[in-house]
């Protein structure tokens, strides 16, 4: 089930707070110095993390499909040979990309 921005915010707050509290900490590089982040930096990290997770959840399938589709040239080649051989390789390819990267419900 799809999560809300509020749920991702809670999730990111927990994850990042655990990282901040650990021995690793969370730092930033400013004036070529490695400094511990402040509360304002942390709050922005939570916002960015939550928005990023929401974007991946809602729109990640679009990018995944773009990367998975064969090139236009290759798809035209598939369509040509489908017309010659009376096969469905092009439609099968498109269907597989869609089923491998489903749109979230």
């Amino acid at each position, binding site marked *: 089930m799809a999560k809300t921005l509020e749920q991702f915010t809670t999730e990111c707050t927990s*994850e990042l707070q655990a990282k901040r509290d650990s021995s690793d900490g969370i730092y930033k*590089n*400013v004036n*070529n110095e490695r400094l511990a*982040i402040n509360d304002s*930096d942390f709050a*922005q990290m939570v916002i960015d993390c939550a928005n990023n997770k929401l974007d991946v959840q809602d729109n990640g399938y679009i990018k995944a499909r773009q990367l998975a589709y064969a090139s236009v040239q290759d798809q035209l080649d598939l369509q040509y040979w489908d017309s010659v051989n009376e096969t469905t390789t092009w439609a099968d390819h498109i269907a597989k990309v869609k089923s491998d990267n489903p749109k979230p419900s």
Partner: protein
Amino acid sequence: MAGSLIQVDTETVTSNVSSVSLTGVSTNDVYMIACSNIFFDSNDDMKIRFTVSGSADTSSNYDYAHRAMYNNATMGSTGAENQSSLDTNQSTGTSGTNSINLIMYLFNFNNSSEYSFVTYNNVHRASSNTRTGFFAGGGLLTEAQTTDGVHFFLGSGNNFANGTFTLYKIQS
């Protein structure tokens, strides 16, 4: 006299940091940023914001467009407006063999009556699928204000583990 590059700021990352800020734009010259051998502690996307008095402008006023080219996948164009940052690469990379190397030019940053613009060329390699990518594009912050640098961060809250970020003024 021929123009020259004058180093303004350099940030060297050798231990994990969540963000890197390059600042020091203070004239109306064009500036250039060179980033080399950048990689993370976990796969992520590198994003940028412009800085105002040293702090990242987190408004949703960034517009961008870029062409994404890959060695083994369909090329694509991506663009968006009113974003909270600019996206510069596909998900990369946790070692020197999966790093980001980037050149970026900064325009109008010191001009308080114009928008701030960047163009960038970025070659990188994704860890998860060893996909080589090249992004060529640009973006802007649609606020007429003085900006003085660029803030680099990762979309999912991971860390930069390595990299050198250098800001140069292109002295005309």
